[in-house]
């Protein structure tokens, strides 16, 4: 533990005025050149994050719009917050074999660690640029397939770059 010697009482005034000076300097600067202002007028304005930002989850889709997810449950296994719930079922196409009939992420539990994305062997889950999870009381914070793969922002779903044919050729 380090002990700092307290300054005398009268000396406090000097840094207070110093601080006030800085505050007013920035206030005046912002008043006259608003473009250089650092803060945003949220929620009218949004900050643009980099492409690697790990925000809300997206389930990628195949060309036909069906989920790429094979319900291997590696994401759920890796999830440290235990917020992913998947129910798998038999698919009619023997080459697909297994697919999720329900995929739920409890976004309030999620810690946005990105392990699910890391664990996924088929690039089926990604963390997208959206970061707003706020919603009104009574909203559903457990995201289902409809939300994760087909919400409006995604404009018909995100396709993965992995080629299905190549993947099947390799026997995956």
């Amino acid at each position, binding site marked *: 533990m380090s002990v700092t010697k307290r300054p005398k009482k009268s000396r406090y005034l000097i840094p207070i005025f110093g601080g006030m000076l800085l505050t007013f300097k920035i206030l005046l600067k912002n008043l006259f050149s608003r473009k250089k202002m650092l803060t945003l007028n949220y929620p009218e304005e949004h900050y643009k994050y980099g492409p690697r930002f790990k925000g809300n989850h997206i389930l990628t889709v195949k060309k036909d719009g069906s989920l790429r997810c094979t319900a291997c449950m590696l994401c759920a296994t890796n999830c440290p917050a235990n917020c992913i719930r998947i129910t*798998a079922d038999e698919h009619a196409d023997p080459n697909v074999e297994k697919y999720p009939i329900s995929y739920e992420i409890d976004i309030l539990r999620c810690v946005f660690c990105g392990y699910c994305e890391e664990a996924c062997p088929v690039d089926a889950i990604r963390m997208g640029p959206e970061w707003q999870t706020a919603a009104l009381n009574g909203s559903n914070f457990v995201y289902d397939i409809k939300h994760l793969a087909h919400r409006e922002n995604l404009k018909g779903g995100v396709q993965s770059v992995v080629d299905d044919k190549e993947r099947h050729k*390799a026997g*995956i």
Partner: protein
Amino acid sequence: MKKMIKCTINNYPVEVEEGTTIIQAFKKLEQEIAHYCWHPGLSIAGVCRLCMVEIEGNNKLQIACNTVVQDGMVITNQSQKVKDTVRWGLEFHLINHPLDCPICDQAGECVLQEQYMKFGAYQPLMSEDKVKKRKVVDLGSKIVLDTERCILCARCTRFTDEISKTKELGIFNRGDRSEIGIFKNKPLENDYALNTVDICPVGALTSKKFRFQQRVWYLKKAPSVCTGCSTGCNIDVYYNEEGLWRIRPRHNSSINQYWMCDKGRETFKHVNPSGRLKSSFRHTAEQTEKMTTFQALQTLKLDSKKIGLVLTGSYTCEEYDAFLDFFQLHSIYHWKNNPKNFEDYDNFLIRGDKNPNTKGLLESINKRQLKLEDCTQLEQNISHLDLLIVCAPENHKLYPCLEEKINLFLKSKELVWISPHSHTLLQKPINTVWTIPSKTYFEKTGTFINHHGTRQKIKAVASIVDSARSLEEIIHILKTGQTDLTQIASIRDKMKTNYFMEQKGSL
């Protein structure tokens, strides 16, 4: 007594019986050795070529599964030569094996995965196209086959040839076009078919019922004894917090070897919370009263009544003893699942007596020199009784005569129904009916005596229904008026020392 011979395995000296194969000696020493086709319960096929060992003085590597240990043999599988061979052996296995572990239901308990992690090359050399074969082939109502994942170890075909002797499965075609299959209109439907799923080292054969239900790494396993019939096969129960998911056989050379029947694999469903009786009830014609088990037992008046007791073979020996010691009984009846085929036996594992502990029941009765009447006698005596206590079967499905018998029991003046499950008939009675939830084999500790008289102990794994009580605990509450369960544990410990000295197949 067979002659013992000495050999050295990976620098450890070991003594084995004459005629032991090298792989058995490895297993005895708990030394790691890669293998797929060898299974202790089946004949030797020697086709996977992975259990290679180097024997001193022999230039050529030998397979451990078909080589018998000779006196003074010096065996190793740690040499570079062996390691190379095993690595290449795995490479050969994998060149046409699809890399769809994420989808494959075997992932997590796949021997191919495990051994690749241990012994594999990690540098795939195959750049050519894989041989494509049929996927998701229907083999009947129980099993699905994926011929691509199959590594042709022939365990399943050997099982149907040698153990079940039904010969449904065969390996068709030859070379790398070979595939396991059934003939068109003859599905794999024998009573032991699901054993092929257990012995399949990869995800080629999967059980329709368990497939895609759970990933195996979410499951824990607990040793237990099958309650499906009086054979008492040793089992592993796979469960997690959501409930029980499947049952697999556990090796016991004197009872079930490595196998169990498909019916026995279904005896976990009645344990799961859905459909269980979750608290005690007192049903009368007018009303239904819900209460805790403790309350129910406190309210139950037993004094100076003529009590009849109906017992089934699904409770442990300790429970029978406690029950029979406590009550002053007018008469005791034995409720059999199906008197007609009660003595049936298919000469392998399945018996007509669908109770795990009929022998235990008889033993407890005989020890006290009581008279055990058949349940059919109850019809005449029921009017003489004031109270009928029914220790009902744990798994109602195994009792085809259930409804008929319940109707009979309902004729009594007062009925106490002790079972993990209730029945709709019990809920609208003419007289008073008490339903008291009891524990299943998964929740209690005790002893079962199987058809051959082998004592086997089961151990409580988890509590599934909080209000459920074993018969022992019920007696304890009745005796002391307390719910203190630690006392029971001490009773149990005492019994342990008395009973389990010479038992086989203990847990």
